């Protein structure tokens, strides 16, 4: 791996583990049903306590006191407690059945954000483990403690000052990525959805969202598993990134709530609806046709739309590291833990994927060269490289004429040959999951708990429906799909999805790899003439030019103002905009149903005595924000 890549990964790791920026001071789950009698010690009820190194008597004190007060308050008010605040800490509370969750934050964190964080955490747990009571019956406390710890650290990963306020998805910096790549990602997802067993999907790159069809909440949940397998894959060998097939596909059982499922099912998944308006008539007849074909249809359609920009594709210039990259990748070391668990898998699977001719790992570095050649002889490239570059080619050739025929020939061939192997593939996959489950405590997949009917309490309020999360990894890129549970036993569907997307994923990965994944370059530099934060409430994404790790200065005036204004917006539906001003700072906040935007002018002191004065610079903030933010793609007009 090049140093640049290593650096990028290290920085991802650092973001995941940065301890100072954590939002949560305490978190615990207390099971009141275990402490009924007077003699029962409080510790019996503590299911999980964070930080784990907290002395037991302190744990007991907090659990006992907060749970006691929470119970007392909920009895007085005939409603569960929601927050318990102390002078130095405040706690978001959830009480359900006999469980008592508490998340303790510093008092600076907005209460709304804190409560949201706790709900997310509990939802995450239920997503991967099913109903809480049930998972505590089926699994050991230790293994579930590991789960809580993991979710907690995931939710706090990449914490910047603003992420304590907005719970947002981390996305790739779209200003830095060719829009065509995003489009491509969306198309891959749409293609996968042609399989009726696939509900929705998302594509992630190095812990950031490239494209998603799921709600932000669900995407966030899926990302946890991704980052987990990613981190796991990073750990054993340290430098290993090359993929062998056994590590590339995995699945795990997840649990959706009824609303989540309904959202996915009633959303226009079926089929072709999601495509651009120009495609339906083309899709309708092909509904029953093979996936691979529809996939190859789509790029040509869309490339019409994007024609002008794709001809000056920026990626074309970025292939100089071609040689060194291939050097790094060719040794093909194992990709993570799965490999060691299942040593025979590479042999089994490689032929089915690489067309029997090229080793899989060859594709990664071949593709860029393929696209660099495409101006001269694209089609030969396709032939020689196999499925890895189908999408790639198409993409770059702007749906050039003879391509489609070629691909179809190729695809059919691939599917035919792949059929048998994929069945094996599935067996292997299940094997792997079994061994994995016992080894790493990731049990949800293995135990495969029966659906909720066992638990009337959860059934009544929010039944959780088991589904499967399918993940296909290509180095830093992951295709995550929520699929019906029997998808994993439906060889044909799996095969279709796998093959139809593999090539495109490889292509996408190769492109994304050349792009800095993380924060926008604007964030790195010195403070500009203004600071802004733009939160998209629909997609849960945050755009800001505020540097993420600015010394953890929690009292940063802009963050402080934003925190106050955000709470205010949350509590007052009718509030549209606000300017607040202290002696030294003025911050403008505005919101609509879809977004919240905060803006502060830097430098140039506010020279005014605070008396009402229309010449006060604070009052020019709205117009300044409108103008300045346009170039960040924020439209306040």
């Amino acid at each position, binding site marked *: 791996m090049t140093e640049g890549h290593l650096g990028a990964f290290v920085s991802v790791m650092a973001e995941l583990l940065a301890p100072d920026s954590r939002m949560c001071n305490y978190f615990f789950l207390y099971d009141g049903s275990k402490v009924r009698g007077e003699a029962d010690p409080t510790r019996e009820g503590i299911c999980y306590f964070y930080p784990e190194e907290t002395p037991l008597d302190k744990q007991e004190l907090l659990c006992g006191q907060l749970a006691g007060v929470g119970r007392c308050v909920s009895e007085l008010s005939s409603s569960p*407690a929601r927050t318990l605040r102390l002078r130095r800490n405040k706690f978001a509370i959830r009480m359900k059945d006999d469980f008592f969750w508490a998340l303790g934050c510093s008092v600076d964190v907005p209460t709304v954000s804190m409560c949201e964080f706790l709900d997310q955490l509990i939802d995450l747990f239920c997503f991967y483990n099913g109903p809480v009571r049930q998972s505590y019956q089926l699994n050991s406390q230790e293994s579930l403690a590991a789960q809580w710890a993991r979710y907690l650290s995931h939710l706090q990963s990449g914490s910047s000052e603003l992420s304590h306020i907005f719970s947002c998805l981390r996305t790739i910096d779209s200003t830095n990525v060719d829009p065509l790549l995003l489009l491509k990602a969306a198309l891959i997802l749409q293609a996968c959805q042609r399989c009726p067993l696939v509900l929705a999907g998302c594509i992630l790159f190095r812990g950031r969202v490239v494209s998603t069809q799921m709600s932000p909440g669900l995407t966030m949940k899926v990302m946890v598993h991704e980052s987990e397998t990613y981190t796991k894959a990073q750990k054993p060998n340290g430098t290993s990134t090359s993929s062998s097939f056994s590590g590339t596909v995995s699945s795990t059982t997840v649990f959706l709530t009824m609303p989540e499922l309904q959202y996915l099912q009633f959303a226009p998944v079926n089929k072709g609806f999601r495509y651009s308006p120009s495609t339906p008539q083309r899709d309708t007849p092909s509904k029953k046709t093979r996936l691979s074909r529809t996939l190859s249809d789509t790029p040509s359609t869309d490339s019409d739309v994007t024609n002008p920009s794709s001809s000056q594709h920026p990626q074309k210039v970025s292939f100089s590291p071609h040689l060194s990259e291939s050097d790094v990748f060719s040794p093909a070391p194992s990709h993570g833990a799965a490999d060691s668990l299942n040593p025979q898998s590479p042999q089994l699977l490689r032929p089915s994927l690489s067309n029997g001719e090229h080793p899989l790992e060859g594709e990664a570095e071949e593709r860029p060269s393929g696209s660099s050649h495409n101006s001269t002889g694209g089609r030969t490239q396709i032939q020689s490289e196999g499925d890895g570059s189908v999408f790639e080619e198409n993409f770059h050739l702007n749906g050039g004429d003879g391509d489609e025929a070629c691909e179809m020939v190729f695809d059919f061939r691939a599917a035919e040959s792949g059929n048998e192997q994929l069945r094996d593939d599935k067996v292997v996959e299940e094997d792997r999951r079994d061994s994995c489950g016992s080894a790493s405590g990731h049990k949800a997949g293995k135990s495969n708990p029966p659906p909720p009917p066992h638990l009337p309490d959860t059934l009544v309020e929010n039944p959780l429906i088991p589904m499967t999360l399918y993940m296909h990894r290509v180095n830093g890129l992951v295709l995550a799909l929520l699929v019906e549970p029997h998808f994993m036993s439906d060889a044909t569907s799996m095969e279709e999805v796998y093959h139809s997307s593999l090539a495109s994923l490889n292509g996408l990965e190769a492109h994304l790899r050349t792009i800095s994944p993380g924060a926008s370059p604007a964030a790195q530099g010195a403070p500009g003439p203004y600071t802004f934060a733009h939160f998209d409430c629909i997609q849960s994404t945050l755009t800001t030019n505020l540097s993420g790790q600015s010394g953890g200065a929690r009292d940063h005036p802009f963050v402080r103002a934003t925190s106050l204004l955000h709470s205010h917006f949350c509590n007052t539906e009718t509030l549209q905009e606000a300017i607040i001003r202290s*002696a030294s700072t003025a911050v403008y906040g505005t919101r609509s149903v879809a977004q919240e935007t905060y803006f502060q002018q830097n430098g140039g002191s506010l020279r005014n005595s605070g008396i009402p004065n229309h010449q006060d610079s604070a009052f020019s903030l709205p117009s300044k924000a409108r103008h300045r933010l346009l170039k960040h793609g924020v439209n306040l007009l």
Partner: protein
Amino acid sequence: MKCFLIASESAEVLFYWTDLEFHQNIQEKYGASQEEGHELPAFEDSISTLFAPIIISFSTMLSQGDSYTSFTTENNHNYVLCQFDECLYIAVNGDGEEKEEDLRRKIYVMKKMTEVLFGLVTLSGNLLRKELRAQDTEQRVRLWKHLQSLLETYSHLRENDQSFLVEAVERLIHPTLCEQCIEFLERRLVQQLNSSAERAGEEVLHAFILVHTKLLAFYSSRNASTLITSDLLALIIMAQNMYPSNIDVDDPSPESFYTPEPSPTDKDSKKPLRGNAPVFEFVDPDIQMAEDSLSTLEICPPDPSTPHRVFLEVSQKDVVYPMMPHSMYCLPLWPGITLVLLTKIPSSVVAMSVYTFLEAFTKLERRLNEGQGGSARGQPMHEVRSKLDKFIKTLALSGIQSSQLENVWTKFKNRAFSRGGLGFSKELIPWCKEMKIQLCGIYRQCFLSDPGPADTPQRLSPSLQERAQTMVQEKLMDWKDFLLVKSKRNITMVSYPPSETDFPGLIHFICVDRSCGQMIAPSLSITERTTSELGKGPVAQYIKSKVWNLVSITRHYLQKGYSTLTLRDGDFYFCYFLWFENETGFKLDTKEIPALPDDSSPIGMLALDYYRKLLRYYSKNHQGEPVKCYELLTVHLGVIPTEIILQHCRQLASKLWEPSRNPLL
């Protein structure tokens, strides 16, 4: 569903108030049938049982270095907790009418009211506990009813009266009449009272006339110290509690439940400090019965001419003495119009001495706690020693039981000053505490204990009070109807500012002079029969709720250090400004205002005076120059361009105080 509770650390109920809903809620939980005649103690037990886990947990957490400040539930019930010395105050709201900030304010206001009623005794948790929870059930019931009705009066005012919303005094805007009245109070009334032989050693310091909650005229005698806004507002609450304005008696709004109804027996007379408080309009027959059974407990109705003992801040020669005893005479002139007299009582000098000694022991305790070295710790105590010796002798001479104080003081001296003693070390701390308790005890004995039946009550004689009442009545006879109307439509958007055409789109404003604690705002009376220009009904009610909400929002931002705020909210545009001026009206530069934690004392003037602290903080940079602090809130229609709105604000800020700059306080 509302509840207010004061409890001791051992979860003993020292005072409680609940609304009907909370009461019923608790009764349902504990079975409705309570023994007749013992309703109150039984209910008290239920409350105590219910809250005990919270109170005990509070102490446990406190001993671990942190303590609860507030709780919320999923159905949006709010709980706020504050501890003052050894008393824990808990306020609960379950109907969404009060936010956390309101509950905390309520707690601080009740704390303020206990200070006005019990003075320095509040500094000793132990004594205050005894005071609030008298052994004698009858006495306890009477006191609790008084406090309950004060709490209700306050809540009612805060919800309906703009001056209690922003916690500043509102004056009747009628410069000529005001001036005449002040002159009358000075030349005729106060002079006559203070020269009368029937004043029994008391001296009228302040006299003022209230029309509902608004101040018509205020006069302070020359040797009186300034009456601070916080105290004045507290006194207005007390006066309103005795003679509630009937503004919304006819109004069928749900608030009528909280309106204290004077009991028929003393409708036309003053209620003494521990007199029977208004009976709630309980509907529940059980409760009604209990109320009836309670009233039978009252053996002798106290003499109506007995003044209220109130404890107010006095400053003398730059020394501030908090909670000095005064007598308050509240003389009703007509329904809605009241004359209030504040007198200095002859023994008040004892209170000053007690306070000085309390201060000395508190400082010593602090020094010992900080472990400051050497004899320096005890240095100031030598002076205190001789003074306290003298003080104890004087007490004995004037027939005050001071033997216990003397005992403790002797022991203290033996330990602190003698050669074989402890010297000024940490071991002395418990003795400092004990001395403070004894001093508070003396104070209690002098100013709070009921005079025995043999003692002649010390007060302005009833006939003198009557004469004062008649004099002012005669003076204001021709004005009374005008005043009553005027107080409801003090200034209107039509009449003030001069012409509405100057400010198109302006819907409402409030301007407050925080340096003198006064406010000006157009009337927002929506409960009266006559319609204001805002009309009656939903629109006026909506504007009112917006204004109330805006004030609470601006306070929140001010608490976090933001002194300017504009909001576009629905169809309205709100502005808020806080700024400083010097006396000549020159605008002074802003200074960063400190950001305070969420659970700090509420921003206002009634409880702990935030603005006084703010002015002191600001004045550090403006030594020797009096600094004034102003606030302006405006509500505009949202369609008006922002520049115009800001111009309005500027014009209002410069114009508002001009016509009324005659000094009244």
